């Protein structure tokens, strides 16, 4: 077993419950690389919700809270306010984050509170067996959209950018190096960092979204079906932008705002 894995993974909890070919392993390693690059393992705690991707941190040798469906961000905000000097890394999925947890996402982004969120987007509810999620492309035939999904998919990156998240990026499991770099950037950034990862669920999304179950083929699509976002650049028709969409170092973070207001009002901090 490689040294990084030994340092970060509770081997007595293995095997993971991920299906063969799942993208979660790539994301798990990318986040480990990010923490290792920054040398901040002791300063990090993880929080996750419910769904396949929320199991990612449960195998880490870290303090981890595996919470309720949709509520990871609310738990994380409480933890962050209790330990403002620590780094909180949140793992969530497209259903967990954009559907049931949408309200918490909106408000955490608007607060620009210093959390790093990795939203794993596999376009489907995997754990429950392949139902439509808020990210499922229009027309996809899933277990709960038997005649084709009629809802316009929600773009999490656009949503949090509009609300005030100060670091926003999207990568895919076919870009593990860039993904690790983005997670590291997000954790170094003081403010709400949102990193969407397009991931493969060969079992469920493979069937209903991509029409093929080969994880390598889905990852190849992520390579070919995306283009690198550049500010002011033209969007590429039919392709998904990836890269860093926003990195605003001037935006004031939530806890900093609280402290400034207390100082301005002359209120003595106990």
């Amino acid at each position, binding site marked *: 077993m490689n040294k990084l894995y030994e340092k970060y993974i*509770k081997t*007595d*909890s293995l095997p993971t419950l991920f299906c063969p070919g799942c993208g979660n392993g790539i994301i798990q390693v990318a986040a480990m690389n990010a923490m290792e690059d920054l040398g901040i393992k*002791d*300063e990090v*705690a993880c*929080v996750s919700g*419910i769904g396949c991707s929320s199991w990612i941190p*449960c195998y*880490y*040798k*870290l*303090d*981890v*809270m*595996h*919470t*309720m469906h949709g*509520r990871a961000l*609310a*738990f*994380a*905000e*409480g*933890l*962050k*306010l*209790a*330990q*403002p000097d*620590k780094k909180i890394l949140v793992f969530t999925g497209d259903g967990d984050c954009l559907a049931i947890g949408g*309200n*918490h996402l*909106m*408000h955490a982004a608007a607060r620009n509170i210093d959390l790093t969120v990795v939203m794993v987007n596999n376009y489907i509810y995997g754990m429950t067996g392949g139902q439509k999620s808020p990210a499922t492309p229009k027309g996809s035939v899933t277990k709960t959209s038997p005649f084709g999904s009629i809802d316009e998919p929600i773009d999490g990156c656009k949503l949090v950018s509009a609300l005030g998240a100060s670091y926003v990026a999207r990568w895919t499991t076919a870009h593990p190096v860039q993904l690790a770099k983005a997670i590291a950037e997000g954790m170094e950034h003081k403010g709400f960092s949102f990193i969407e990862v397009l991931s493969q669920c060969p079992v469920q999304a493979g069937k209903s979204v991509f029409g093929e179950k080969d994880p390598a083929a889905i990852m190849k699509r992520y390579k070919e079906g995306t283009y690198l976002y550049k500010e002011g650049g033209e969007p590429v028709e039919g392709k998904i932008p990836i890269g860093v969409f926003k990195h605003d170092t001037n935006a004031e973070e939530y806890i900093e705002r*609280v402290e400034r207001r*207390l100082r301005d009002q002359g*209120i*003595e*901090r*106990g």
Partner: protein
Amino acid sequence: MEEKSSKTTEVILQGNEACAMGAIYAGCRFFAGYPITPSTEIIEMMSSEMQKCGGAFIQMEDEIGSACAIIGARWGGKKAMTATSGPGYTLMQEAIGFAAVTETPIVIVNVQRGGPSTGQPTLSSQQDVYQARYGSHGDYEIIVLSPSSVQEMYDFTIKAFELAEQFRTPVILLADEVVGHMREKIEIRDGSKQIKSVKQKYVVSPQEDFFKGANTLVEGQLHDDKGRRIGHLAGRSGDFINNINKKISDNVDVIADIDTYFMEDAEVAIVAYGSVVRPAINAVKKARKVEDDRVTTKFKILKDIFVKGIPETFETDYSHLKVGLVKVNTVWPCPEELLKEATKDAKIVIVPEMNVGKYVHEVERVLKDKKVIAMSKCGGDIHTPTEILDEILKEAGIDE
């Protein structure tokens, strides 16, 4: 529970304010909440006070988020509380179950209003007494305290934090609009109490706070002492459920608390909790002809002048009526043995409640050999002492 040595100050406070003050004294250093009538004064007070004592405050986007945030903060090492009412309390139920299964010590205040649904935002009720016990899905035990005065809003909040830490469980302060909004003179203690968060042997979940190097895994699925899931294993899951429930059900004698008034020779017992204790004790005093101390000492002369001539002063002498009151402070777990002992000589038990008659079923279950009578009052008004006295007279077979 009280620290006799610490200095006290007399103040006039509203019940909700007293609750906030009690929490701060108990070491609460994180509050998350969402405004809702009739509990809003608690979040208002916490918004200004929490940061002054070194804590943190956040107004969340809803009550679900509030309940989750306090659990997060508690694992971050801060004693934490939220407060709500009616619909907000319903929204918190899933998080209460999460706190129960992860054995997280938190305090949740429910200042009850009338329901169902939006119901009666400004009026009082005791309709949530079963939701407080059974509100979240699944099998769990929980501790619920019911204050009946502003002093108890203060004292029971402190006690809630102590019990939460001692049993590593969510504790509910089940108040209501009457005690939440009334103002009384109370004694508050100076300084801050150090409630120790000691590791408990009977707890089955990981207990070490975050950032202590323990790699704590807080897991909502049934789990082992390392936090690893066992929810897919039937046998071990059964043991887990029994263990987290036993820590409360085996310690009812430590947790349960009642007060008794005139129960020594009582043949008729009133069992009450929360603000209904107040008219109940007045009814007992009337039946026993015990004058209120404050009336006799300070206002006796005034009373003689103003009250003379009013029929009430010529009322029948009920001093032969053997009526007593059992005031239930910990509604859950039900103080079964204490109730049985206190009412052992009583033949009739009257349970006045501001609901359709809920806790009376629990009293019936415990006191099987007694005649247990529900005295339900719905609509938002608290029982009057006269109403309770009339019920006593009716049950005692006294025709007026």
